[in-house]
């Protein structure tokens, strides 16, 4: 069972695409897996014959558990295992597959690179037990990682982790009744964790949107054929405020706060099959046009269930456009391990009192922030929102 995403611990076999005895090509889909984040097809790590299915359809197993055994095509026993982890999936105990490699290959002085030694220490691995696939049989970092993965599941055989394929279009939407599955269950578990673990405080400011809407209109002039919303501009403003208040752009895990230098902005997208939060990577490096284009792309692919694992990982802060539902105030839940989430509420035209004590009609929106009170106080949150409000109202962002 490959690890299809950070913090994913288990997966369910939805369907086998191959039966025992079938021939499989390299990278040919052999089964469909549903994890809490995505539904994906598993490409075969080797070409050969599917000998035995170990996990029947519908069963859930931990990451790293063997799913099936594949007899690799044209592998004479005892060949130096150039791709040991893959051939190990054929059920031969690791270390036997290439027993000759240790002795028959041109011998290389046993030298372990710093990376190899660090990983061996981390996982408590005896390096003399590891089969090297590098130059002259050198043990590489990847060899140690693969060995650690095998060791972790206490078995002698392990499938290789497949590369993350795109999300397949298998059903995982809100169930009409019965136990929650797939994506719905993940959403439930994540929010449960957010509620249970994070003491969240909430605060809201009112922001006048005149300048932002003017910039949106200017942008709409430049981008023909695509409707431009206020959201990419809002995200640009959020980025510029985060740069000034980096403590909100962080991940809090295992009691350690890691403030991130990259702004990886998650955007909550509501779809027919559940809520998903694709991430705009390094949002600070994008112009507003770039943000708009990236956002369009992610939203489209989210709705069509074509997001890859990479698209939904690594977020450091989340933006939620609750105004899209017509909400004027909401209390979002922080998306762990992040430490803050901000919403843009509906932009409404309201009478406001201007600087000259006159009453004018202006577009106004509420911006709400929930934050992890363990790692910051209202002061940080307030300062961030004050900066965000000032940037939006002056139109100086992005």
């Amino acid at each position: 069972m490959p690890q299809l995403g950070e913090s994913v611990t288990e997966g369910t076999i939805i369907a086998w695409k191959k039966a025992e005895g079938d021939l499989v090509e390299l990278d040919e889909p052999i089964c469909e897996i549903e994890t809490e984040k995505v539904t994906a097809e598993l490409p075969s790590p080797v070409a050969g014959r599917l000998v035995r299915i170990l996990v029947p359809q519908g069963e859930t197993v931990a990451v790293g558990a063997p799913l099936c055994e594949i007899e690799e095509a044209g592998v004479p026993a005892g060949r130096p295992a150039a791709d040991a982890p893959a051939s190990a999936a054929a059920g031969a105990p690791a270390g036997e597959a290439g027993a000759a490699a240790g002795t028959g290959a041109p011998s290389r002085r046993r030298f372990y690179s710093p990376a190899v030694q660090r990983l061996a220490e981390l996982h408590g691995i005896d390096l003399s037990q590891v089969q090297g696939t590098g130059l002259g049989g050198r043990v590489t970092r990847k060899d140690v990682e693969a060995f650690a993965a095998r060791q972790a599941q206490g078995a002698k055989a392990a499938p290789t982790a497949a590369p993350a394929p795109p999300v397949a279009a298998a059903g995982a939407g809100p169930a009409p009744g019965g136990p929650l599955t797939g994506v719905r269950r993940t959403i439930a578990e994540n929010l449960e964790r957010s509620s249970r673990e994070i003491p969240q405080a909430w605060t809201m400011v009112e922001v006048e949107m005149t300048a932002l809407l003017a910039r949106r209109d200017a942008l709409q002039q430049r981008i023909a054929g695509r409707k431009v919303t206020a959201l990419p501009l809002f995200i640009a403003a959020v980025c510029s405020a985060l740069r000034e208040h980096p403590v909100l752009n962080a991940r809090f895990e295992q009691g350690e706060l890691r403030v991130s230098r990259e702004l990886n902005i998650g955007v909550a997208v509501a779809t027919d099959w559940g809520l998903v939060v694709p991430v705009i990577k390094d949002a600070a490096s994008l112009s507003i046009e770039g943000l708009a284009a990236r956002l369009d792309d992610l939203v489209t692919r989210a709705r069509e269930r074509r997001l890859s694992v990479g698209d939904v990982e690594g977020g450091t802060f989340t933006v939620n456009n609750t105004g899209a539902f017509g909400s004027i105030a909401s209390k979002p839940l922080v998306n762990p391990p992040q430490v803050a989430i901000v919403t843009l509420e509906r932009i409404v035209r309201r009478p406001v009192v201007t600087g000259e004590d006159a009453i004018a009609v202006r577009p106004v929106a509420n911006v709400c922030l929930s934050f992890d009170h363990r790692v910051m106080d209202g002061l940080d949150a307030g300062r961030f929102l004050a900066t965000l409000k000032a940037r939006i109202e002056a139109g100086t962002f992005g």
Partner: protein
Amino acid sequence: MAEMTVLEAVRTTLAEAMERDDRVLILGEDVEAGGVFRATDGLAGRFPGRVIDTPLAESSIIGVSIGLAHYGMRPVAEIQFADFIHAGFDQLCSEASRWCYRTCGDAWLPMVVRAPWGGGVHGGQHHSQSIEAFYGHIPGIKVVVPSFPADYRSLLRAAIEDPNPVLFLEHKRTYRLIRQEVDGAPAETRIGRSRIARRGEDVTIIAWGLMLHEALAAAEQLAAEGVECTVVDLLSVQPLDRETICEAAKATGKVLIVHEDTLTGGFGAEIAATIAEEAFEYLDAPIRRLCGPDIPSMPYHPAMEHFFMPDRERIAAAARELAAY
């Protein structure tokens, strides 16, 4: 939607800066007529009196820029070829770099020096040099080396708006060679940041200028063979983005640094030392440098120039070796 060459990106950004700010002016050899590479083409007509031809004397071009900047202007000096900047080395490194420091921050020096560098155009001995290692060694001067038009735009603007001296290096081979749709393309606005231009788990390649484009082409070629490269677009030599460089190095544990400049004391050495100091426990192979050979200058003859300069095939071969190590 605007597709631009590197040269158009430079010219457009200069024009926009002059439009925005009356204090911006251009000085250099033949800049009124548009300069040898046509980077200032048309600007003298649009901004009368603000595009100034100078004598053939780099020390005075830079010295005059220092004076202009000190008295409130924002000069953008053009050096015709980076090879000739050394006549102004003293002005840049002994004077301009220290202005802010020696006045304890009371005086700033908002000046930019643009210089076309690098080989691959049969420029021969005096028109092909890489100079980033000389000037990247000097604290107090920022040294910028973009590779893509969108970054040329955002970083030249940042250089002109920067309150202190910036040496802005333009790879002359890429002037008309490299095109990019700049709208929506990633554009770094902060001097001193690098970008991870491609992510892969086998080998990390760090490059700048023409070599960055060769590295990306090599990475494409290698991907077809199943070797996945992380590629770092350096963007800035001084300040050096140690954090991004080390993050990219840790991602694979195998690092290849590519530059056109000659090997010994080239800027790759500084990058290699940084990785060795800060990411030692993540290294799974010796750090490798692929550079020009230690020869006094780049030869003119095409075959000899080809011998001197790394290219995508050589980069791919070196990365392949590292992947297999």
